[in-house]
């Protein structure tokens, strides 16, 4: 690192490379043609095998002895068009339920994750409570929780306790998913390298400031894909609120199915859920792929 060594080094670095223009070689042209040929071949193989599988499945199902009966009870166009408006109206309630629940879930999950990260002995009871909460509510099946909250809280006959089934259903979903989301946030916080904390603390930022300005902004960015995954799951589980009676999509489908002895309304409800979760799933994949690209050292903002 002596000063005398510098000029020579600078010279080698700045010496302009000889300028050349690129003419594609024969060899490269042949190579690209071969690659194109291979791509065409794999596309046709994929198309053929997909068609084969699809045809086999369709033939096997429609040739089965029970098919005419199944077609009548699950794929009836009249039952579908009759039920769809009610099921769709019910589905709007599902959307409302999971949107409201998601907001509370994110808040609860973040608070629980932050409480678990507190180190001071003063917060021991809070920390223990947070651990207990995640342990218990991750262990209880969501449908059981819906029953317990939905019928348990009103049975207490407490003054001011919610009695509306939709509110109770949202509470049950928030309690259940809050525990999962808390763990997602915690894993995100733990994934931030200790050197980031050391840098923040050495600048005299307090524990709270370090979390708020340095750790959390990075952690949240990392956990967006898993959070969206849980959100997709929540959209489906909003149907569990049907157990408490409100007229959401599944309940509407049940009513129609019960009055006509035809199950097509369930199919209508299923299609509505798919129409919403598939785009979310694709968005999750996209974001996860983007995060992975960045972690592999690509450019852009980390």
């Amino acid at each position, binding site marked *: *690192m002596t000063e005398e060594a*510098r000029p020579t080094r600078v010279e080698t670095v700045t010496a302009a490379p000889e300028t050349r223009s690129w003419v594609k070689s024969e060899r490269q042209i042949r190579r690209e043609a071969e690659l194109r040929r291979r791509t065409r071949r794999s596309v046709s193989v994929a198309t053929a095998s997909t068609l084969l599988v699809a045809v086999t499945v369709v033939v096997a199902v429609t040739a089965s002895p029970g098919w005419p009966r199944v077609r009548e009870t699950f794929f009836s166009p009249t039952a579908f068009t009759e039920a769809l408006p009610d099921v769709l109206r019910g589905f709007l309630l599902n959307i409302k339920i999971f949107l409201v629940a998601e907001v509370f879930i994110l808040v609860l999950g973040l608070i629980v994750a932050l409480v678990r990260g507190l180190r001071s002995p003063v917060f021991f009871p809070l920390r223990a409570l947070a651990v207990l909460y995640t342990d218990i509510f991750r262990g209880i099946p969501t449908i059981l929780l819906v029953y317990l909250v939905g019928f348990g809280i009103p049975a207490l006959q407490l003054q001011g306790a919610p009695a509306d089934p939709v509110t109770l259903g949202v509470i049950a979903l928030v309690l259940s998913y809050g525990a999962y989301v808390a763990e997602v946030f915690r894993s995100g916080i733990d994934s931030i390298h200790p050197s980031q904390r050391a*840098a923040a*603390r*050495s*600048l*005299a*930022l307090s524990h709270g400031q370090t979390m708020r300005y340095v750790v959390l902004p990075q952690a949240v960015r990392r956990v967006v894909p898993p959070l969206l995954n849980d959100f997709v799951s929540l959209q489906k589980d909003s149907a569990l609120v049907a157990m408490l009676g409100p007229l959401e999509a599944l309940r509407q489908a049940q009513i129609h199915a019960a009055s006509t002895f035809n199950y097509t309304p369930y199919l209508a409800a299923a299609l509505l859920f798919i129409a919403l979760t598939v785009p979310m799933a694709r968005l999750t994949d996209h974001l996860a792929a983007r995060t992975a690209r960045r972690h592999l050292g690509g*450019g852009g*903002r980390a």
Partner: protein
Amino acid sequence: MSLLKIDGVWKHYRGQSVLRGIDLEVAPHEVVCLIGASGSGKSTLLRCVNLLEAVDDGTIHLDGAEITDPGVDPDEVRKRIGTVFQAYNLFPHMTVLDNITLAPRKVHRTPRAEAEKRAGELLARFGLADRAGEYPDRLSGGQQQRVAVIRAIATRPRLLLLDEVTSALDPTLVTEVLGVIRELKATGMTMILATHEMEFARDIADTVCFLDGGVLLERGSPEQIFTAPEHPRTREFLSRILGRL
């Protein structure tokens, strides 16, 4: 009076003693270089000074007040000490400007305009004026480390700790970071550097300390340490690292 006074500091990790009774005094405007093999305790000593590690025995005084007392608020101490790390440790989600102004604004309550003005001046002084709006990963290692130095001195600390700040750098980028440190010495900044750059230590240090196995074996002027080391371990270390003597 000395700015920093380290008395009989011990530090243990998992039953091993990393620091064994270190004594060191640093006068205002003095530049102290810590040299020694990896694992000799240089980094640990720096981490004890800014309280990222708690000492297991002994005391450290900053400006005459003990900072190793359990009642001392570490944040109050760290406000007066700047630290630069080997791996830069810039905040990747913030621009260069936000990296530099975070502590002045949030810890020292400097108004944003004033903090950004000072950051702009420092960036200009160290040849990074056009980089204020960039994110750290768009910068070369040398540029990132220069930003890390600016971040550490933006709050006008009494003491700057530099922990092997050129070890992660490409050799062609080392000189630009060393240039910044040289300039800081010219402004009278008190510094403690842990370093493997012997030429640089010789050039910039007022005092060179040789650590070996957690013991401060020898200290003296660069002239004395590099040309006439007294301790055989110092001689051995220098001959290994410099290939001469």
